[in-house]
């Protein structure tokens, strides 16, 4: 097998199979910056996946799928906001409940449809074409990197654009500054006239909507074949960890996604790499897959240790009021 082709495929896989993580991470950062800890990423991505997929297929439009995925995620976010912001429920428990809820919804809708007629992705030309790789002119002609990094489906580019756009929004706009104030000290934000609840509602829904798109993307990656395991397959939980890895910085989340993606893909492509480079990478074949599976979590632990050792004040992106409900009249 052509060595260059193996490496190119490896790079390509890192990007294409892990960008859903970026959606989950950027969405969760958006939510957490408003001071809400939402542990329901897994469930919200699942809900976005199933509704995005079904509506996308019925409309035979990728755009409708993306919008439906976003809407399903945002509705889950609305539920989360209603429970935690208005009704002051515990955020951890609400988030965990949302995971169960989203996964339940996924299987409920999926299984009922499977009985009556599951839409097969390949039957819908617009979706298939819409999801096809788009090559960026010039850049995609670079050997190795070109095909690996600059020839992808539209959702990859959208994910990167959202991540960078969110970074700009959070750090370079007055609205982002206000949002961060809400997450750091809602009482301070409230006292200067910022509508804390509105800000929380908006950003929880926005963030959850982004997660929903990531879920839809996950489903498309799986070719839309519905079986006993959920499309999301734990990626929502990795996204929660990636938030910490990225230090609540959506631009760093891109790096984090690729670092995790690298090890994730090594698990899948390890044997083909070993076969293509028996001298240099032959040892990859002898590593048990369990180690690869554990790697993302081991890296998170290492990153947490490193960041807490060199944690200077003000350098952490952790919102100070994360996980705490705000009630104006509370003393």
């Amino acid at each position: 097998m052509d060595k260059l082709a193996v490496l190119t495929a490896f790079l390509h896989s890192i990007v294409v199979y892990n960008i859903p993580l970026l959606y989950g991470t950027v969405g969760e950062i958006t939510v957490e910056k408003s001071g809400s800890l939402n542990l329901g990423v897994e469930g919200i991505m699942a809900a976005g996946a199933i509704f995005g997929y079904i509506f996308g297929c019925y409309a035979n439009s990728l755009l409708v799928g993306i919008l439906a995925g976003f809407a399903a995620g945002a509705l889950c976010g609305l539920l989360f906001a209603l429970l935690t912001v208005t009704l002051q429920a515990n955020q951890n428990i609400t988030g965990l409940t949302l995971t169960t809820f989203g996964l339940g919804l996924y299987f409920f809708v999926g299984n009922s449809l499977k009985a009556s007629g599951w839409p097969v992705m390949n039957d819908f030309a617009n979706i298939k074409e819409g999801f096809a790789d788009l090559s960026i002119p010039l850049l995609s002609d670079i050997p190795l990197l070109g095909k690996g990094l600059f020839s992808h489906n539209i959702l990859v580019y959208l994910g990167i654009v959202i991540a960078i756009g969110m970074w700009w929004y959070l750090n370079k706009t007055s609205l982002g500054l206000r949002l961060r104030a809400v997450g750091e000290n809602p009482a301070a934000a409230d006292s200067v006239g910022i509508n804390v609840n509105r800000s929380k509602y908006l950003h929880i829904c926005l963030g959850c909507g982004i997660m929903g798109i990531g879920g839809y993307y996950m489903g498309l990656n799986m070719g839309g074949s519905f079986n006993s395991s959920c499309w999301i397959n734990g990626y929502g939980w990795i996204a929660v960890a990636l938030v910490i890895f990225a230090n609540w910085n959506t631009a760093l989340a891109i790096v984090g996604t690729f670092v995790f993606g690298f090890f994730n893909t090594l698990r899948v492509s390890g044997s083909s790499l070993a076969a293509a480079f028996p001298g240099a990478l032959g040892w990859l074949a002898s590593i048990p897959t369990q180690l690869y599976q554990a790697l993302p979590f081991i890296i998170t632990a290492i990153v947490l240790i490193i960041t807490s050792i060199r944690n200077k004040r003000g350098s952490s992106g952790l919102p100070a009021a994360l996980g705490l409900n705000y009630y104006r009249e509370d003393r």
Partner: protein
Amino acid sequence: MSQPYAIELKGITKAFGSVVANKNISLNVKQGEILALLGENGSGKTTLMNMLSGIYKPDSGEIFVEGKPVSINSPEDSKRLGIGMVHQHFKLVDVFSAADNIWIGREKAGLRLKKNRFALVEEMIQRFGFDLDPAKKVYNMSVSEKQTLEIIKVLSYGAKTIILDEPTAVLTVQEIDKLFGVLRRMKAEGHSIIIITHKLNEVMDISDRVAILRKGEYITTVDTRETNEQELTEWMVGRKVDLNIDRPVMEKTRPLLELRDVTIRNDEGALAIDGVNFYIRGGEILGVAGIAGCGQKELCEAIAGLRPIEKGQMIHKGDNIVGLPPKAIHEKGISMSFIPEDRLGMGLAPSLSITDNMLLKNYADTKGPFVNRKQGRADAENVIQELDVVTPSTETPVRRLSGGNVQKVLLGREIKAGPNVIVTAYPVRGLDINSSYAIYNILNRQKQAGVGILFVGEDLDVMMALCDKIMVLCHGRLMGVVHAHKTTKEELGLMMTGALDLTDKYEDKPAGIAKDTRFGEKEGEEEA
């Protein structure tokens, strides 16, 4: 009537559940005056002002701003009406710069966050006549800088009426002077100011009129010129109060706790206490005076074993206690109670009940795996009864109590263990007259029982009345130990700023070293 009142409240009532915090209160603030709002802890001052700042909504009653009836439903409404409040617990985002803290509330900030906001804020700071670096992060600021930022913040939003909730509680004497200068200037510029306080001398110093609340009810408003501290106290407390602090004279024992050449570092690794000597005898109160941050906190922590002593010795009844763990020091009868600036941070767990907080100190005394809640509850009841703690029950979380009661619980728990040395820092911080005097009495009773007390305080008048001797620190160095009844405020002030050094006043007796020291009793002759 030529000019409408800046603010007028009519028949304001606010209840929290069954507790009525404000009962039918009517008062007014004239334009361009400083109104002092006086009342004990829990008399409803802050609640009333929070209805002006939009935190609470009144159950009934009317608010008029410049003669027009208004309804204030949120801080946003309050801001729009030109009312700005500097809360007692500052409402600032710690990780933001000064400029960004102002910027988040700016009406027309634009979408993009531009670099020139720092220059704009700088210009604003100078226009208001302050001195503050707009790029400085709040977590790097001193308390006084944070307060300055809060004032600039409300001014920048165009506040006409400014409410300050106990602004002086955490400031040093010099900082208070500076603040009052600022307030007088703002008044001259036409601002109306409401200042919540319970320090009578400040009321007399700064205000034009005084409004008094007692237990949620409005008592009266008087011209400051036509009243005096005694009269104000009686209105505030509702009965005659003796404003003298007792200083019982006791037979002094030999030194209980002696520190010799002690050096301690602070969290940043700089010298906090630098070669300090002092001793405490049984039956005396030794005051510690000094400008904020001159090592008082580190000294208290080191005595309690919470902070390592780098150099020097600490002798308790002849035993060296340097390096002992906090628990062993506590068992020797040395108790420490420190009231930090936020008043809830140290010593008590705010969400736990009084009983649980009692148990925190002696849970290890019970045998077996279970805590003895019965004992804890009995202790809690004891403290509540002996120190007049106002609380619904022993199971009420400490953070729900008012400041004075929290401090009584803390002190009560320390005293309950029967210590022979009490180290207490700022025990009356933020307390009203009644509660303060209750605390002084508690300390005096301990002194009469033969306990040695180290009292770290802020108010020089109080220290001169309560303490037997006062040691003065300046930048971690001992400036001398003086007799409280012989010294003057001026002398103490000079020592606190380092202008006067009395450590060598007596040639035969260096300051802070007892003639009848117990040094060397057990460990052989080390020093003369």
